[in-house]
């Protein structure tokens, strides 16, 4: 099925993050949250561009980069589909999504002069909170 992702995607032009990046990040986010599933068709470049009022080339750039990253695959004559391969989202692929945030945490912790064990300890309650939420 085709997900009406133009209703799920939002862009913020003045955020300092290029719009193609925002689209990429959001498609990834929709995958991680399960709102987009392996095999789902993405809406056409044209309909996303028109719905968000952004340049079609921007959307097409985001799709192509996601294709290169193996997240999407091109279906000839039909459009873009969520790649079934990375469907399950291997643990390492999902960890990759977390990496930039982890790097930030590590860098900040170092600036603040915190030890690794202090940081681990600080993170623990958050993970527990999520586990309980299930």
């Amino acid at each position: 099925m085709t997900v009406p992702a133009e209703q799920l995607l939002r862009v913020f032009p003045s955020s300092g993050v290029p719009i193609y990046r925002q689209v990429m990040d959001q498609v990834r986010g929709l995958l991680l949250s399960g709102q987009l599933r392996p095999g789902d068709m993405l809406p056409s470049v044209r309909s996303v561009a028109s719905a968000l009022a952004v340049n079609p080339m921007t959307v097409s750039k985001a799709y192509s980069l996601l294709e290169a990253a193996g997240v999407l695959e091109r279906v000839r004559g039909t459009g873009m589909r969520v790649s079934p391969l990375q469907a399950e989202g291997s643990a390492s692929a999902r960890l990759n999504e977390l990496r930039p945030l982890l790097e930030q945490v590590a860098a900040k912790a170092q600036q603040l002069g915190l030890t690794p064990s202090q940081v681990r300890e600080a993170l623990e309650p958050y993970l527990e909170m999520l586990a309980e939420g299930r």
Partner: protein
Amino acid sequence: MSDHPVETRDLSKNFGKQPALCGVNLALPRGTVTGLLGRNGAGKTTLIKCLLGLLQPSVGESRVLGEPSTDLSPGVKARIGYVPQEPVIYPWMRVEQAIAYQGAFYPTWDRDLIQQLLRTFELYGRQRVGALSVGQLQKLAILLALASHPEVLLLDEPVAALDPEGRRDFLRMLVELVADGTRTVLLSTHITTDVERVCSHVAILKEGRLLRVDELDRLRDRIKELRLTATRPLPETAPELPGILHYSASGPSAVATVEGDVAAIAAQLGRDLHADVAVVGLSLEDLFLELHR
């Protein structure tokens, strides 16, 4: 045929002794939407009027769809759409008459598109042009410019008088028009978020000179802000390093705007100043302001 449907070479225009454009070299590739930014009086309108042949350049030349602006054939004119800053449409005509009148000049006039645009813009055929509000008049001008499916579209602050909804409608129409990748658009505006949305390229004019012209994403990759933090006070003047547009320090922290290979400059600055460096992306508005400091 050149794949730059809009081109200028050393284009200069003086009004008396007052220079309005100085040596502008611009080449817009086919299929691109270029945002033309500049403060009031930077030369945006003059540039667009030179492209259309409405003003004679003092030096240099410009070409649209391969023909010199000063001598455009009717055939090429029919492939150009233009929305002036202050649309002039005969006030005694009704909207439908104004549409029919303009349509007579264009072989590619699209009546279905007109009906669709009239509905979107909430304009009515029987309305008198003279009784339209400034915003409605602008909408009519946009409709007249789009209805011929122009290959080259020159827009001089087309949305200045539109409300946010009208602006968004206009942006959608523009996106629809350019979706086939063959149209070339130059859009002058003060609304940088609109440029970030719909433009692939950006050209920045300052006092008649073209300050930057580049792909929008590339420009934003090349110009960023660095936030420096050190354990000791940082120097108050910028280090001697190419690519630093602006620098200001207060105590152990400093902010620098840099242009070029941002990662390399950040690493170099971090080493030279013994500082931690965070790279921050700039919105187009911030970037514009940085270039005008």
